[in-house]
């Protein structure tokens, strides 16, 4: 039997143990989420030191106030939300964010397909379509995709983080993913080859 990878249920168990005084569980939470949160935070700010400070505050807060966390099933959401709030607060304090508003969204996510390093000479239709679709994405939508790909957050949780309706989040995800489904792209490709011959 292979071990079940860590999912929400698993983290609820870890959280339960931690609440009952098991400091090992805290270490486990830290080891699992520190990298994930750092990856997310570094899309919002490129100041590593500021980001590390935020992560430190976040985990100290969890340790100190965690027993009050009412819905441990939302643990991951809580981590992302607190981190984002804390980064923006710190940036604002340092006056780096001059025109700060609650709708602030600066999210630097570039897909490998878009970067200069990616060359595709095959003139693959599917790739072309996807590139076009990616070029229309604003920063908020990029953050949405990042959260979908790089966390276990639900559409409701992502929507809440971005002030969007869960349905809108889901539609956006599917819009991009449609380009990656083989029956769409591959059939087009097949058609293309048949005509070309």
């Amino acid at each position, binding site marked *: 039997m292979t071990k079940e990878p860590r999912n929400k249920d698993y983290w609820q168990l870890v959280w339960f143990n931690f609440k009952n005084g098991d400091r090992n569980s805290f270490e486990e939470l830290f080891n699992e989420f520190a990298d994930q949160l750092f990856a997310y935070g570094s899309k919002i700010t490129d100041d590593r030191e500021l980001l590390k400070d935020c992560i430190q505050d976040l985990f100290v807060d969890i340790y100190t106030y965690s027993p009050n966390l009412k819905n441990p099933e939302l643990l991951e959401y809580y981590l992302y939300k607190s981190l984002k709030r804390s980064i923006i607060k710190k940036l604002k304090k340092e006056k780096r964010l001059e025109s700060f508003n609650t709708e602030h969204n600066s999210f630097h996510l570039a897909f490998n397909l878009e970067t200069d390093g990616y060359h595709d000479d095959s003139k693959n239709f599917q790739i072309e379509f996807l590139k076009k679709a990616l070029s229309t994405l604003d920063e908020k939508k990029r953050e949405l995709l990042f959260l979908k790909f*790089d966390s276990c957050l639900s559409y409701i949780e992502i929507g809440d983080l971005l002030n969007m309706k869960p349905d809108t989040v889901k539609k956006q995800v599917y819009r991009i993913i449609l380009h990656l489904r083989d029956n769409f792209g591959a059939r087009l490709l097949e058609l293309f080859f048949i005509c070309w011959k």
Partner: protein
Amino acid sequence: MDIYERLIENPLFFKWIYHPGPEIDSWWKTYLEMNPAEADQILQFKHRFKALGFSVEKLSDAEKKALTKRIIFEIESIERGEKRNKFMIGLIKYAAVALLFFSIGSMYIYLKMDKRSKEWNVTETRIPSQLQGPVLILPHGNSIPLKKSESSLDYTNPDKVVLNNDSVIQSRKEVETVEQNQLIIPYGNRSKVILSDNTVVWLNAGSRLIYPSKFTGDRREVMLFGEAFFDVSKNKDLPFVVKTSFLEVKVLGTEFDVSAYPEDNIIQTVLKVGSVTIHRNSAGIFEKDLELRPNQMASFDKSTQNSKIYNVNANEYAIWTKGLLSFDDLEMCRVLKSLERFYNIQIHYTDPKTGSLRISGKLDLNKDLEEVLEYLSKVSETNFAKIDNDNYQIK
């Protein structure tokens, strides 16, 4: 839901693509083996996401370690701070700066200590059965037989070490060295050692104790394989630490028993007076040490690495030092094991039920073996038969 939708809605799918690792890879490998019909589509879909890809910033190992240290430091200063009044909280900022310098200093000490503790890496070995009696191995490798089966050693006199209350075995010059002595007590023997700080250690049969002639440094450290009862002399500046292969028991001044035989799966620590803390050797940095109150026993299971705490009568775990054995609802196999060690004999039984019998009572081990076995056979309603001098059989 078609297969693509199911994959998209499964966070483990993206984890597999963007954060692969042995655990998740093997989970998907099993999944693909069990669903071969879907394998092609899944792998192709994965391949395309991989091509879409994006890079993320990563914390280096060093950064992550430093961050962990900062968090522990802050958590611990908060925990300490809770006990003080609010006035103190304002001072913490300044204290933190002071502590930073202090911790640079202690890091240096810690690194030095680390080097020193390598000397403790003595491999866990069983008591050499060929030993006829208790032996003291001196730092330079000479071994001295202690003659009696109930020997005693006294290190309190700075000028000499007294063996069995009369003979002197080391002159002062040799005592000056801080290297380790090793006391080996085979089955059928016991010994009492008074260490240089006046701590008294009773070593039970089949045990080894490694200790310095004189304590130096900021802790009093000894290493134990087997069972010993400690009456530690009070010194709140110099914690007394008993190291075993899996645990470290730390005290300031107290009476307690540690049973850590290499062949037993359980390490027991029983506290009679005072307080002790128990530290797991392989503990993670966030793990708290276990604290015992008087008349509590911590039972550490080597295979699961877990400890349980029981309320016990500590006197019953200490009276072996007086040559008595007391057991209250204890498994027969453990009683037999104690007798085997004490008298250096083998007790055989074929019915596994015999070993799991639970019995209560007291045995006076100062009496001879035949008498003790007779009493035990009455309590447990079994019969002992003598095969030869060293072997007995339960029928």
